């Protein structure tokens, strides 16, 4: 009778594995905590990069929108007072903004077919401009000299110039703009003059509308009238063909008023009496009094605003504006100055759709930081496994299956990754918030970023756990595969 019958070993559940892994971690608390810290730092870095990218991107876009709104108020006010520039007209026809086109078709008395033709021509010119812009610097020097696209377009109107241009294109193997000679020739000789004619007509119409508006307001300056009776100006502007539905006349009036107040402060600094008096108060020589310094001084507190207002009232030929107005203008001025310095150029609006709004250098940085972390974690895991070869061998002698041993290490790594990852993700997001506050201060926009920030923290956490598990699989697989005695001998 055989007493020893070899059967398959029972397979153990993961609960027991986790239990073993946990007691292992507790016993080697110091070593484990170093691994956890390394993992935590990796996750913190990743979470920080992602969260900060989201926070700063959102804030920058919000600031830019505010700046744009302010700028567009300026543009609207100016358009009520003087006709659009030729280049801006061309641009509007190319952008095909419906409100502007409605105004232009009224002022230029454009029929539907004329409008269609004009839009087509403007698009052709846009194609030409794009082609010229796509030239390399060298090609551009050879083909256009120091002319810009429009100047080039007007230059090649003569057949000789056109021929020379196309000849040069052929020589340096550049595809001529618009492709064929015929297309280019039609553009310069027919389409462009016709387009110019329409644009001039529209501009003239706009000028007439402005003149008529001024007449309606009985010689008042338009911005002055706007401050006093915005509704009246709105009616008059509508009557002369402005598309007033797109304009918020109350805001426009406030903008005009602030602009006037600001202008008045700047003008008053020119007065010797005020300048000297301010110099005394600010404790600087009179030559160093300029509008920014004065605005900063006013914004310090309302008493300063009241002082300056009194000064303005006492001075001949200058009107007081009211301390509150002064204070508001100064803070507004400084706020926009600050916003402009925070976001000097348009933020990348496409960034929103990209991976957490990261730009290319951000992605490289993450990749690089990642490599370092992978090596750090892999090393920590390798050490942790090799110093436990005896333990692994003993367990195998006692009947542990390879799978169980691997599972134990993987669970251990996953637990370490989880603990390190949670702390790391929280820390990283916290740092991103601190950095955002220190950079943007009160203008930091956190509305609507919560979900994405949470997502970036979770992503960083997941990556951390995966990283730890992957780093543990290799060495523990090698150790588990060895025959028990070989593992013991490795010591």
């Amino acid at each position, binding site marked *: 009778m*055989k*007493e*020893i*019958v*070899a*059967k*398959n*070993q*029972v397979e*153990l559940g993961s609960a*027991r594995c986790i239990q073993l892994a946990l*007691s*292992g971690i*507790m*016993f*080697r608390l110091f070593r484990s905590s170093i691994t956890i810290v390394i993992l935590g730092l990796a996750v913190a870095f990743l979470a920080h990069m992602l969260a900060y990218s989201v926070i700063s991107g959102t804030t920058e876009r919000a600031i830019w929108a505010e700046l744009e709104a302010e700028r567009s108020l300026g543009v609207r006010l100016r358009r009520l007072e003087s006709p659009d520039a030729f280049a801006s007209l061309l641009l509007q026809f190319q952008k095909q903004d419906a409100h502007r086109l409605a105004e232009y078709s009224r002022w230029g008395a454009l029929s539907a077919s004329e409008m269609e033709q004009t839009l087509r021509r403007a698009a052709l010119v846009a194609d030409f401009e794009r082609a010229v812009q796509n030239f390399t610097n060298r090609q551009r020097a050879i083909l256009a000299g120091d002319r810009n696209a429009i100047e080039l377009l007007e230059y090649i109107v003569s057949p000789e110039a056109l021929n020379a241009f196309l000849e040069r294109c052929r020589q340096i193997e550049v595809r001529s703009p618009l492709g064929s000679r015929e297309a280019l020739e039609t553009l310069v000789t027919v389409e462009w003059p016709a387009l110019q004619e329409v644009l001039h007509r529209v501009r003239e119409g706009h000028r007439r509308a402005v003149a008529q508006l001024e007449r309606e307001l009985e010689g008042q300056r338009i911005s002055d009238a706007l401050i006093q009776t915005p509704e009246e100006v709105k009616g008059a502007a509508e009557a002369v063909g402005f598309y007033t539905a797109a304009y918020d006349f109350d805001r426009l009036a406030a903008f005009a008023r602030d602009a006037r107040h600001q202008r008045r402060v700047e003008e008053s600094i020119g007065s010797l009496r005020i300048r000297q008096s301010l110099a005394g108060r600010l404790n600087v020589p009179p030559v160093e009094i300029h509008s920014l310094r004065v605005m900063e001084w006013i914004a310090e507190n309302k008493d300063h605003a009241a002082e300056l207002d009194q000064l303005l009232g006492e001075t001949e030929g200058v009107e007081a504006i009211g301390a509150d107005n002064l204070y508001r203008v100064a803070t507004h001025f400084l706020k926009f100055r600050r916003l402009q310095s925070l976001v000097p150029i348009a933020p990348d609006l496409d960034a929103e759709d990209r991976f957490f709004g990261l730009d290319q250098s951000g992605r490289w940085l993450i990749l690089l930081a990642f490599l370092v972390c992978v090596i750090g974690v892999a090393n920590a895991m390798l050490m942790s496994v090799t110093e436990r070869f*005896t*333990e692994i*061998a*003993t*367990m*195998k*002698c*006692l*009947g*542990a*299956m*390879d799978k*169980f041993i691997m599972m134990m290490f993987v669970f251990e790594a996953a637990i370490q990754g989880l603990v390190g990852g949670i702390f790391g993700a929280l820390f990283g997001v916290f740092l991103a918030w601190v950095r955002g506050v220190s950079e943007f201060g009160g203008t930091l926009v956190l509305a609507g970023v919560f979900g994405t920030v949470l997502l970036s923290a979770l992503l960083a956490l997941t990556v951390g756990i995966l990283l730890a598990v992957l780093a543990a699989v290799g060495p523990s697989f090698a150790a588990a595969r060895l*025959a*028990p*005695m*070989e593992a*013991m001998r490795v010591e």
Partner: protein
Amino acid sequence: MIMTAENEKPKQTPPDRAVIVRTLDLEKVYGSGEAATYALNGVDSTIMRGELIAIMGPSGSGKSTYFNMIGALDAPTKGRILIDEVDVAQLSASELAFLRCRKIGYIFQSYNLIRYMTALENVTVPMTFSGTTPEDARRRGMELLDLVGLGDRWQHRPIEMSGGQQQRVAIARSLANQPQILLADEPTANLDFQTGEEVLEILRKINQERGVTVICSTHDHRLLYLCNRIMWIRDGKVERVEKRENMTIKTGKIGGES
């Protein structure tokens, strides 16, 4: 040390006892080519069920290698190992694990307890691997610790115990799943005289009371008075096998070698 005839009277040894471990032309080579070293060079041996066999030999004789082979802890380069007439080489990884877990108990020279577990946890590890429920494991673990006289120290960790105590925990662990074979690799080498004797006494008890086959490699000559047979290994070969009754034990001389 002077032996008296009574206290180690070997128990009855029926001549037709079944063979439990058999090795055929066992070879183990480390390295290859010119550097090849034969740790074992053609070992044929049989070990009977229920006996207590001592494996002796000088250091480097291949004793430990032989020991690992019959414990299915290492694979031979050539030859076969039959445990209960089953070729170990034929077993799958899972079956090997089963064999190590339930049929063979191991006792190591350096104890090899798991450092972060208490005595009881160490003893119950093999039971965990064999799928015993935690309650059963705990109960049996306590019984085993009582057997080796450590019932009151069940929650001590290895670091809090002496070498002798650790080795006794290791013995309790090796008995966890009621193995048929107990392999002890120099179990007394790291222990002082007195503790060594205690350990040997436990081994003898297990062999006699539970009928467990005990295979024990050792330099400790006290074992000679307890065992049924002695196998000498030298240079990777079985030099000779003697029944204890046929052996003259000379005290005051080095070794049983003549």
